[in-house]
């Protein structure tokens, strides 16, 4: 029992214990906050330690309860998992501080707090469990944990709009979960195991037709969760109605678990990359359809939701190419996108409170009213749009390089789609910034614009403007997360080198298999 194998189960155990404690402390709000913050901080530390240890000594493997791999549950942390653990733990902690700041200002009338902290920690535990799962079924359990918690968080307060949005989200998620479980059943029927390391050997030995069916079922189930076009229709309708911190976490992390699952299964179980061509086409469509949707939105939260969908396309593009460089770029872009999208949604939350609405038709003069928020949103937007020298540019550049290296016409088409999407992202976000922040307040009334008239507003928008104060903690949390995205730019060299090492592990499944079965597979 070395240090690594103690740390691995802790990343799931700490949030779960924290969740139980916060549930018991239902009425003691300040203690709930302390417990949540402490448990997520501990996870951040554990994840950071794991990252260093795994990078030095190779994957950490824990056979839960001492049951050896194909029979017991196995937890595996390789470089990719460790990186995902660290970045998601940091995001969860930052958003938690934002939520605490919002709760302090509101006196907690908006969210029934007694259930917020337990659900949030269960969400965290499910997320971490999905990242360290060494078998398909444990991955499913991780998904279900985080989804159940997300159902509760999305319908917090139980208002009409949230129930309506929640129903769409829940039904779609249920269908994808059932599909995933059926896929697991078929995988078990075909191979007699659900352990990923063993499947990596047995699935390539199956007849091609069965391989394709299994791969396609898993891909479909994960694509719904990752919001890959055309399975992305549910996302822009359900995310924006939730409270701002919840939307930020969902946008930053929930779709990325789907991408992580696609990345893990496609590289480990289907090393031949049989879905390269369809994935390339789908990636292009995701980018273009997503960003065209964003262009038509007048509501900042809906606009961001559509950019979220479109940027999933870049990740799928990288996975579809599947070369080591492409995978390294995908991992780097994953980290970049998790942090920048979460930050932007938090900025939208700040805009909503200072400006009273997120509709561009009624926002104006925010640069004067909230200069700090204006800067935060502006830098985040440039980063997402891929302006040099930010990490968004570096990630896209690496993806484009990988696409050009592959050199097929389809890869070049994807590259072009990526460049167009990047420009349109910048256009959509710059327009939103101009309207909300730069346009003087007095021009908002009777504003004549053929462009604004063509934008569609949130269909459930009541047209009300309710401003609320912003606490220093909320701005501080957002600023800290923006600094994190900027540090991805400053330390892009080491981060990308790490992503390249992680990609090399992912590219060669032998590393993963040897870590789980040091004495050879049974």
């Amino acid at each position: 029992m070395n240090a690594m194998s103690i740390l691995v189960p802790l990343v799931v155990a700490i949030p779960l214990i924290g969740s139980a404690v916060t549930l018991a402390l239902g009425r003691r709000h300040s203690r709930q906050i302390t417990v949540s913050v402490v448990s997520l901080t501990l996870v951040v530390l554990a994840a950071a330690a794991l990252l260093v240890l795994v990078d030095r000594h190779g994957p950490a493997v824990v056979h839960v309860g001492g049951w050896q791999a194909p029979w017991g549950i196995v937890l595996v942390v390789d470089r990719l998992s460790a990186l995902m653990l660290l970045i998601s733990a940091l995001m969860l902690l930052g958003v938690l501080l934002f939520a605490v700041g919002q709760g302090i200002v509101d006196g907690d009338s908006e969210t029934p707090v007694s259930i917020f902290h337990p659900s949030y920690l269960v969400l965290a535990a499910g997320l971490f469990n999905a990242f360290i799962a060494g078998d398909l079924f444990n991955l499913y359990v991780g998904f279900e944990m985080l989804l159940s918690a997300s159902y509760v968080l999305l319908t917090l307060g139980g208002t009409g709009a949230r129930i309506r949005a929640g129903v769409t989200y829940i039904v779609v998620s249920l269908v994808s979960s059932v599909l995933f479980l059926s896929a697991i059943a078929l995988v078990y029927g075909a191979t007699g195991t659900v352990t990923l390391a063993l499947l990596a050997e047995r699935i390539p030995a199956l007849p091609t037709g069965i391989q394709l069916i299994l791969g396609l079922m898993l891909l479909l189930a994960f694509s719904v969760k990752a919001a890959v076009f055309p399975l992305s229709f549910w996302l822009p309708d359900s995310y924006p109605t939730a409270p701002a911190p919840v939307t930020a976490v969902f946008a930053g992390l929930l779709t990325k678990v789907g991408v992580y699952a696609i990345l893990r299964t496609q590289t480990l179980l289907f090393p031949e990359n049989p879905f390269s061509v369809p994935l390339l086409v789908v990636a292009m469509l995701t980018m273009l359809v997503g960003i065209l949707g964003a262009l038509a939105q007048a509501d900042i939260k809906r606009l961001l939701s559509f950019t979220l969908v479109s940027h999933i396309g870049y990740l799928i593009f990288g996975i579809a190419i599947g070369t080591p460089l492409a995978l390294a770029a995908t991992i780097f872009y994953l980290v970049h996108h998790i942090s920048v999208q979460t930050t932007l949604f938090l900025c939208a939350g700040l805009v909503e409170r200072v400006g009273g609405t997120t509709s561009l038709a009624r926002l104006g003069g925010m640069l004067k009213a909230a200069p700090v928020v204006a800067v935060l949103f502006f830098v985040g937007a440039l980063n997402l749009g891929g302006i040099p020298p930010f990490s968004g540019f570096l990630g896209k550049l690496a993806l484009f390089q990988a696409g050009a290296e592959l050199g097929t016409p389809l890869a070049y088409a994807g590259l072009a789609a990526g460049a167009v999407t990047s420009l349109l992202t910048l256009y959509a976000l710059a327009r939103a910034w101009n309207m909300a922040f730069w346009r003087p307040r007095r021009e908002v009334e009777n504003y004549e614009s053929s462009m604004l008239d063509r934008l569609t507003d949130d269909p459930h928008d009541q047209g009300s403007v309710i401003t609320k104060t912003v606490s220093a903690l909320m701005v501080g949390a957002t600023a800290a997360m923006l600094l994190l995205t900027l540090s991805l730019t400053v330390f892009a060299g080491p981060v990308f080198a790490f992503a390249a090492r992680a990609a090399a592990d992912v590219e060669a499944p032998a590393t993963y298999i040897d870590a789980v079965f040091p004495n050879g597979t049974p």
Partner: protein
Amino acid sequence: MSASLTLVVLMAVLYAAGVYIMLERSLTRVLIGFVLVGNATNLLIFIMSGRPGGSPIITGTARDANMADPVPQVLMLTAIVINFGITALILALIYRSWWLARLGDEGDDLTDEHAGETASSSEENFRSSSDDDAAVQASLDAGAEDAP
């Protein structure tokens, strides 16, 4: 691998019926559909365990050779628990959306079946019940005094 035809037919019927019902707009029907599809999936996992056999785990009996595969049973149990939890959550959601549809947001201000009563009338209720308590106490005290 061999599987029972009955189970396969049952699974297919459950899947078909479940998917059909899930296509309805009503949330209650979606829930019923989900329960059917969830159980169909459980059956699918069960079918994947192959032919029936002796009790798993318990070794040292004559039936060791054709022991049933225990793993799908474990997977099924977990899936059943998860489905149960989600069913409960959807039921709560259905109740909440029914509440909102019937009463709207004002419904949240109603407390219980005494809703609509004014504060003074509930105060009266409270006073009369405490009067009753006092009367009961008085009669008890009187009874105690009568006792030898």
